[in-house]
């Protein structure tokens, strides 16, 4: 099984971090993983995106041209990546910001009001982690436990962050059915 995921948003929304967490968790789970950031002049426009592949097989091209999964943190992300999606793909949008409507019938859309949930948690910065929680609920890319482990390893120096993130992660998961 191979999952090809694109995560996209404005610079500053923590898009790269959740991509790396996903790849890291996949690695901890023993999967083959790759993480590929967009780089260069795209930065200027203020958008950021990354491609994450989680697979049981050797990963060839770390770029993703036909995402099965898209995490869209803003409108331009939908604009750019929806047309590229694989049939039967899954799009998860941040409905706190994204108001664009689905245009492709062969793609499943999910939404979670990540910024609102994060605001409720009194931690606006965790909107990206909320998305992650929702994502893993919808698509079993990896086991949620692996992601919790990833938190623990990644933020070993800042234990307070681990708790906040776990909470956001769970709220995200709870926000989708």
């Amino acid at each position: 099984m191979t999952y090809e995921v694109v995560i996209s948003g404005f610079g500053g929304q923590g898009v790269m971090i959740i991509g790396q967490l996903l790849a890291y968790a996949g690695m901890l789970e023993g999967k083959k993983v790759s993480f590929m950031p967009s780089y260069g002049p795209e930065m200027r426009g203020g958008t950021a995106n990354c491609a994450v592949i989680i697979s049981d097989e050797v990963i060839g091209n770390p770029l993703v041209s036909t995402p099965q999964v898209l995490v869209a943190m803003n409108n331009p992300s939908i604009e750019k990546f929806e047309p590229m999606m694989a049939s039967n793909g899954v799009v998860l949008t941040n409905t706190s910001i994204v108001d664009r409507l689905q245009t492709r019938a062969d793609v499943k859309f999910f939404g979670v009001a990540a910024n609102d949930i994060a605001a409720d948690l009194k931690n606006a910065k965790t909107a990206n982690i909320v998305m992650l929680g929702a994502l893993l609920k919808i698509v079993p890319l990896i086991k949620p436990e692996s992601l919790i482990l990833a938190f623990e390893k990644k933020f070993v120096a800042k234990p307070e962050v681990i708790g906040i993130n776990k909470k956001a992660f769970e709220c995200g998961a709870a926000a989708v059915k």
Partner: protein
Amino acid sequence: MAEKVLMKGNEAIAEAAVIAGCRHYFGYPITPQTEITEYMARRMPKVNGVFVQSESEVAAINMVYGAAGAGARVMTSSSSPGISLKQEGISYIAAAQLPAVIVNIMRGGPGLGTIQASQADYFQATKGGGHGDYRLLVLAPNSVQEMIDLTIEAFDLADKYRTPIMILGDGAIGQMMEPAVLPEPVERNVDKSKWATTTRAKRTSGGPNVINSLFLQAEDLEKYNVVLQEKFATIANNEVRFDSYLTDDADIVVVGYGIMSRIAHGAIDKLRAKGLRVGLLRPITLWPFPYMAIQNLIPTAKKFLVAEMSAGQMIEDVMLAVVNRRPVYLCGKMGGVIPTVDQMIKEIIRVSEAV
């Protein structure tokens, strides 16, 4: 065994250099290799090393010349246009027989081009982008793990042969993160006081230690060139590296390096599942090129497909090996475009159906 870490290819090269005992880095920012420079800026001060952001790629390669001549393990890195600027300096380093590691994380060209990944500097790296008769030993990693392993090896090879080594990567491997294991720091203690400029007080040779590539008399330079060529012949004999994947019974052998070899690997797995006998020959050293390994496949292979992100450069070396005994096809991508596994599958099928 050490734990797996998730690392960017560029940072893996940088950390591997530190592990190999490199304490001198001179470089200039350029996408998509800037992470090497930035990593060294952070890391070198922590290990009492030297990081200098040079004023240009030209200055960087000449600082490398100075530091290598002074006996240090030293590295520089850049990407395509910056590597073009280093050609004079590289020729000097090869001529003066200095050990140094030069990294090229290739981007799309020619000219300013794009910052996306490419493999169009193959000729420059393997045939000599600089003037005069010299060769670079060119290592082409195809994973973050290999970036680490080959970087460490590059420093050893540089010292062993007193010659510049090039690590030829592409923007994709440079930018991607994947799991890898970092080995323990190596201790080499190569004694260079016999030839390196270490001062009258410290040198262990008789006369002054002089780093030089000037010869007033052509006859003297010819003799010196003979010595250089003998060294290159030794390297060509000893240091060929390659990897084969399912080539034994392959009707079609894909030849590809770097990121292209991975895409081919993915394609081959899918095609094998469909019953197509396809294999992969992956050169790890681009110079010396594994001519022999390819020749050995001629009896069993029916066709060769060279997969490279260029208009067709390595294909000349494959053709030199195959010498018209089997058809050789090109799957080329230019300008920074990376093919998908599916595109590669289509190419392979096209080749399999060609008559």
